[in-house]
């Protein structure tokens, strides 16, 4: 068939762009790999030397490392849970006819445009602060004890702040998928006597599977390296309750200025990310096949 021939031709023409792309992507990774084998501290110039895998050993035996892995995963899963469930619920709601639908939708997507540092500062001091914050004021008005968010539920508080920023993204994608749902199919099911729950479970949800997968994949990429929100609110504390991998690497790079150690941390983060990616493909990747 002629197509095989043209395909080969196309591949040949377009190969340079793929190669360029791969090279472009590989530069930072290669540099990080190189620096991770050096003893290199910015604040001790002239002491650079090759140390092999020592930096990796150092990073992996950090007492905070285990907590950081657990916190990283908890943060990702927590935000995913909130945005997937909340996003689906919101999308179902926004799909209904209502007054002022356009404005409602605008209000809901707005948090996506707010810079993480700003949203963290606003949440910490203006909303969640146990004395000055709005939540504390509401709790007291209702006669309840205000919650000391960042001491009692530090990681949860951060999950809430991050989830707030990503909820609009999930909602938008799910809403788009929902609108493409064949309404005849749904109405036929309703005619057959299916209740709203079973319509949702057997018709709507399977239809949304691909959209949900996309949300999981994209959000995971960003959530694995959440960092600004933690720096602004808790600085990784109390204890290591909110130290994630990105924060640990930050401490290594911009507090210790230990470039070797931070590079090793970066490589470890990429390896971890690839493991997560493999899991993701195993678990949800099938949904991406058309």
């Amino acid at each position: 068939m002629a197509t095989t021939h043209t395909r080969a031709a196309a591949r040949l023409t377009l190969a340079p762009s793929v190669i360029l792309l791969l090279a472009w992507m590989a530069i930072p990774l290669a540099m990080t790999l190189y620096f991770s084998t050096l003893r290199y501290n910015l604040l001790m110039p002239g002491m650079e030397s090759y140390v092999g895998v020592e930096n990796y050993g150092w990073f992996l035996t950090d007492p905070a490392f285990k907590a950081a892995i657990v916190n990283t995963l908890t943060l990702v899963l927590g935000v995913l849970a909130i945005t997937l469930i909340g996003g689906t619920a919101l999308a179902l709601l926004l799909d209904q006819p209502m007054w002022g639908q356009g404005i409602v939708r605008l209000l809901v997507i707005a948090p996506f445009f707010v810079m993480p540092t700003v949203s963290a500062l606003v949440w910490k001091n203006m909303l969640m602060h146990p004395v000055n914050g709005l939540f504390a004021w509401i709790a007291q008005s209702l006669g309840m004890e205000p919650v000391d968010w960042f001491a009692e539920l530090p990681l949860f508080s951060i999950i809430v702040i991050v989830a707030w920023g990503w909820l609009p993204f999930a909602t938008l994608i799910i809403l788009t998928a929902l609108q493409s749902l064949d309404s005849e199919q749904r109405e036929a099911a309703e005619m057959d006597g299916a209740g709203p729950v079973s319509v949702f479970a057997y018709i709507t949800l399977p239809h949304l599977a691909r959209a949900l997968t996309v949300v999981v994949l994209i959000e995971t990429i960003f959530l694995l390296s959440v960092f600004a929100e933690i720096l602004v609110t808790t600085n990784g504390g109390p204890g290591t309750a909110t130290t994630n991998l990105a924060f640990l690497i930050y401490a290594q790079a911009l507090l210790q200025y230990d470039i070797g150690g931070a590079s090793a941390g970066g490589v470890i983060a990429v390896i971890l990310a690839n493991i997560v990616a493999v899991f993701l493909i195993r678990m949800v990747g099938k949904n991406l096949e058309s």
Partner: protein
Amino acid sequence: MFNRTVGLALGALLASTTLAGAQTLTIATVNNGDMIRMQGLTDAFTAQHPGIALEWVTLEENILRQRVTTDIATRGGQYDVMTIGTYEVPIWAKLGWLLPLNNLGEDYDADDLLPAIREGLTHEGQLYAAPFYGESSMVMYRKDLFAEAGLEMPDAPSWDFIAEAARKITDRDAEIYGVCLRGKAGWGENTAFITATANSFGARWFDMDWKPQFDSPEWKETLTFYVDLLNDAGPAGASSNGFNENLALFQQGKCGMWIDATVAASFVTNPAESTVADQVGFALAPDNGLGKRGNWLWAWSLAVPAGSEKGEAAQTFISWATSKEYAELVAEKEGWANVPPGTRTSLYENPAYQEAAPFAEMTLASIKAADPADPTVDPVPYVGVQFVAIPEFQGLGTAVGQQFSAALAGQISVEQALETAQTIATREMTRAGYIK
């Protein structure tokens, strides 16, 4: 409004291009009020020095620190003048990263600089940074609440008195907390406060062989005292409160006492911001009768990177910004109370300043009471009151601070916190080669 904005900015852009012939200094500085004022006085400087134009990079403290450190360490050359603290100056000067300031002019009068501050910026007899403003820490308290409780604050209180008074004043139903202290993890946040406090309890970070001392009884006493005090008499959320959170609480009238930076005095006595402006009294940071007080010493200072091609112009600027004339200029435009504090003896001898700043005397006494070269009861191999002037301290201080905040939040016990701190510190110091 937007059009006007664009117009103004375009105007500013054009104006700056006409100055293209002049030498441009890029100045990196912190976004604190005194520096913002300095930025506002740019025209006064350029009027005197038409050959020098100023370009400002004003950033939040943490971001500024990581920017200038990265840049100077890699010889990036992005800044001609850097704002750095008492922590960086000795380390950077030793590494040869800073230009010695020996060209500040005939009438600079370096002998007028407060000795404690000047010493902190000097390396091997040579000044490497000029202090822009200096601070120590002290007790700020509410005179009305103390009168109500029948208490009288001495000028130099002991920790026992502070603890007793704090517990007595606390009235949780009325949202009055006896004492507000830093709790947010970070080497410049809770670690700074607790380290300064530990000095007055006879504790120290390292012994003369750089062995960490968190397993000492003095540290246990310090941390137990701090945690118990805040649990009994501190505000909710203490473990995530830093300087600004406590400032807001104090200004809202929710703290009986607040032990923090002396520069806070001008904020809490400013009626435009503070609801308790006329009720604030000041006292020295507390002690435990061991000869050291729990107050720190810090000076935001201006320095020039070594190898800068604009060293001369940079020193001209630094000389102007840290001079007596600059203080007079600010006084003339914004009043004496807004002059950058804590750097020059002459300022504290000025009757106009004494009158405008009720906290002047106590600020000076606090600064004089701090000694970075001899901060602790037992001898130590390091310089610095609320920090240890070694490159490893930022990371180490933050990791230890996280343990302190966990103890305060009740997640772990004081013993556990100190044990982990000891492990972390031993590990870091071994890697860095201090412990052989």
